[in-house]
């Protein structure tokens, strides 16, 4: 993942990040809106994403896939925020366990399931199904083995289905 082993200078980092922002801000903003469902919060998270990226670039090298890297930062921020919101919201009381096909799924249910997953599983699902990264890209981004990422991804999907159909509780 890391191309340059030596971090750039402050001015170079800022210029590079500004270029990335001009290139990916729209895509990352829509990605955030899709995950959160609120444009104002997405705008706040967009600013926070690039703030974290600026801090991270001061200590590490430039990533090969800046879009995936920025989406990972943004995805983690979304999951954190959804978890904070879940603490202050009421969850619906499910009296039945409908099958996956008959479940009237809503976007909020998907977000609830994402929140109930652990951080790494949710991150994998978001990168795989929201950003559209392949297991190899995810493995490169996470600096992990591709086989391991595949297995983890299968486990995350299995967990997500259980949560979605109500067969499992955390």
């Amino acid at each position, binding site marked *: 993942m890391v191309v340059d082993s030596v971090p750039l200078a*402050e001015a170079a980092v*800022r*210029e590079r*990040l*500004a270029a990335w*922002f*001009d290139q990916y*801000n*729209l895509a990352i*903003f*829509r990605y955030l*809106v*899709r*995950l959160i*469902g609120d*444009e104002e919060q*997405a*705008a706040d998270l*967009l*600013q926070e994403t*690039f*703030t974290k990226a*600026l801090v991270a670039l001061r200590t590490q090298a430039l990533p090969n896939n800046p879009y995936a890297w920025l989406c990972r930062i943004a995805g983690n921020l979304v999951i954190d925020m959804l978890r904070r919101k879940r603490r202050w919201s009421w969850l619906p009381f499910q009296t039945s366990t409908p099958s*996956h096909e008959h479940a009237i*799924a*809503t*976007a909020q*249910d*998907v*977000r609830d*399931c994402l929140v109930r997953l*652990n951080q790494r599983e949710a991150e994998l*699902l978001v990168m795989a*199904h*929201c950003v559209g990264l392949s297991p190899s890209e995810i493995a490169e981004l996470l600096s992990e*083995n591709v*086989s*391991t990422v*595949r*297995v*983890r991804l*299968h*486990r995350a*999907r*299995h*967990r*997500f*289905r259980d949560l*979605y159909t109500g067969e499992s509780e955390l």
Partner: protein
Amino acid sequence: MNCAEIKTILAQAADVAPADAATFEQHLATCQQCNALLAELEAQTEQSFALLVQSDARPPIATVAAIHAQILGQTQPTRFWQRRSARLLQLAAMALLLAWFGIEALNRMPIKQPATIAQLQTPLASASPAVAVVQATPTLSVVQPSATTLPIASTTSQPALTPTQSNQPTMVAKPLPSSIPVVPTSVQVQPTSVPTNPPTIPVASPPLATTIPVPTNEPVPSPQATNALPSATPMPEVSTEPTDVPAPTKETGPTRVPPSSPVPTTGSQPTASATQGLPTMPPIATTVPTQGPPETVIPGSPTPTEPSLPPLTAIGTLGPPATATPTATSVAPTPTDTLPPTPPPTSTPSLPTATP
């Protein structure tokens, strides 16, 4: 590794070892059932995430500009305590601090308490009684309680306060010994006379020498001549100069006015009958103020019907009083005088009188 172990690995929450991951991949390459199971899982997950609708929204321009400036180091990033929620927390904390300081300040305020009960009693004894006998005002007098005491007045005494006050007279309201003379103030309302008729505008009209028509056989004045007689116009002064009179053709004596000649009425136009020489009644000297030509006086030619009249003066001016003549009555009416009822002329419009 078999299919059951694959399902067990999928259900585990622990991290996957790289060796286990390789074995997992080897089994999937050979097991169609497990491949179908994992493919179904991927499809279901993809279907669920499809509910997260793609958005076509764009970030606000201000936000984009702010982030860009922040990246370039032109502005400082927003800290936690600079956000709205943090500011609310700061305000709440400040309010709590202020409330705590206020309570502490109230608790530390010194309260002066009397040392002994004697100090409490001293000011009470020296103080004026709570219920003091008020000096009677001129409208109040001390009277003995009687049956006629009004119950309301008796309630003004407070015997329950002190037992010694029960013997004291009751303070009742008594009328003053001398009645206060009430002078009726009469408001004299000036009667306002509202004229029912329109107010008469006093016109400085000189008294007119009204000639009372005598029922004679006078020629009927034409309406044009009579209507043209203003009543309020001042009488022009009579010119004493002789005017041009048509010279007599045969007679050289005193000028005689032919009977057919028009009567020298001042201001009266000769009627058509007069100009045509119709026989008319002897002329009567009428002094009707008109705006016509001045009266012509021919000296030395008194007509038999005309007595010697004093020279006509302007009506309203100081002149010799008019003398009553048998034929012509010159009346100088005052504004307050009223004319006696005149006999209505026959088919002639009555001359306007001086009275309005």
